[in-house]
């Protein structure tokens, strides 16, 4: 059964991860421009991530899309902490240098539109470290994400060191049919 949909965007496609993506996932996670990326990323980690992407989507805990342009995987758009009851999710965007900022904006906007329409999600968040890639933060702001909080020392980065976490939100208005369903429930 297919749990992750293919979604076309201007010039590319969001699609489920598959085994042929292992090398690209390793490259993405070895970049060290975002939290969680590390030189220790390995083929084994990437294979586990592909398995996890199916498990997460099947249970609506999360979702991982490959961002494909001209037949080549150039990034990933992921959802974590998907809470269907609260209509919200945490997102993550990992990209390789070959993708333009406009393509990232298009991929993210299209992904959000799809999630809003298909799953009624309306509250999207990014958690960024202040040291994260500035281009990524610029991209999400272009899509309409606004910084709402700076959670001090929210993430441990070593045994004795902590980092602030910047919280960006994009909140969509409730669709009229969703409001109606809520009122009549």
């Amino acid at each position, binding site marked *: 059964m297919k749990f992750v949909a293919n979604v076309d965007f201007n010039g590319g496609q969001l699609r489920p991860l598959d085994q042929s993506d292992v090398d690209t996932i390793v490259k993405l996670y070895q970049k060290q421009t975002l939290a969680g990326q590390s030189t220790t990323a390995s083929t084994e980690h990437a294979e586990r991530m592909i398995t996890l992407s199916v498990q997460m989507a099947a249970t609506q805990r999360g979702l991982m899309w490959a961002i494909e342009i001209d037949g080549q995987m150039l990034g990933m758009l992921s959802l974590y902490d998907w809470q269907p009851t*609260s*209509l*919200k999710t945490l997102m993550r965007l990992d990209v390789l240098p070959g993708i333009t900022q406009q393509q990232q904006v298009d991929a993210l906007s299209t992904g959000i539109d799809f999630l809003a329409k298909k799953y009624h999600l*309306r*509250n999207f968040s990014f958690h960024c470290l202040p040291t994260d890639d500035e281009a990524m933060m610029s991209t999400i702001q272009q899509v309409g994400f606004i*910084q*709402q*909080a*700076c*959670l*001090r*020392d*929210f*993430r*441990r980065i070593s045994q004795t060191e*902590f980092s602030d976490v910047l*919280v960006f*939100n994009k*909140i969509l208005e409730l669709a009229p049919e969703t409001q109606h369903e*809520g*009122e009549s429930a």
Partner: protein
Amino acid sequence: MNWNLNTEHYYVRFAHEEDIQNIYALLGTNDVVKNHPKNPMVVEAQAMDEARRMVMQFDAKEAAFWLVEEKATGKVVARISLQKFNWVNASAQLRVDVFSDFKTQSALSEMIYAVATLAYEDLSLHRLEWFLMSADKCFIDIAKAFGFNHDGQLMNFLEFEGSWIDYQVFSLLKTDDVWQQAIKAQGLPQS
């Protein structure tokens, strides 16, 4: 490790079997729960269930709950808890349910100082966060008076009775100057 704490005017202690009525009286009061937001309990069975959940969450190392008993009267006036323990990032969420007569800076300074001391010293936590609704001006003023930092807001965090709730996030770090001063003064500011 001793989880039962003792302040000048209060016993800050774990609940026992005889506390069902105390929990019901506290969490059945609209003024106590309205800013969480939550509906007040309407039958005592809810308090029994809540007491069970308090034990289960503590056993699972997810949370710890204390009832606050006023020494002078023996009355339980509040419940204070540390919830959503994050042992990786060394953080927890503070939550206070308190009768309005005791929702004062002087009373809360004793309760919160006792629990925060245990959190930082015994549990080795680094960050306590306190999610407060904007409408809860009293708690917000008290959080600021204690030196909690306003980290920002979490918009549309949850839905309650048809309305989407925003939380204001306040935090107190073990390394904050205000906490270090509190240790020297053996208490949070009382006024």
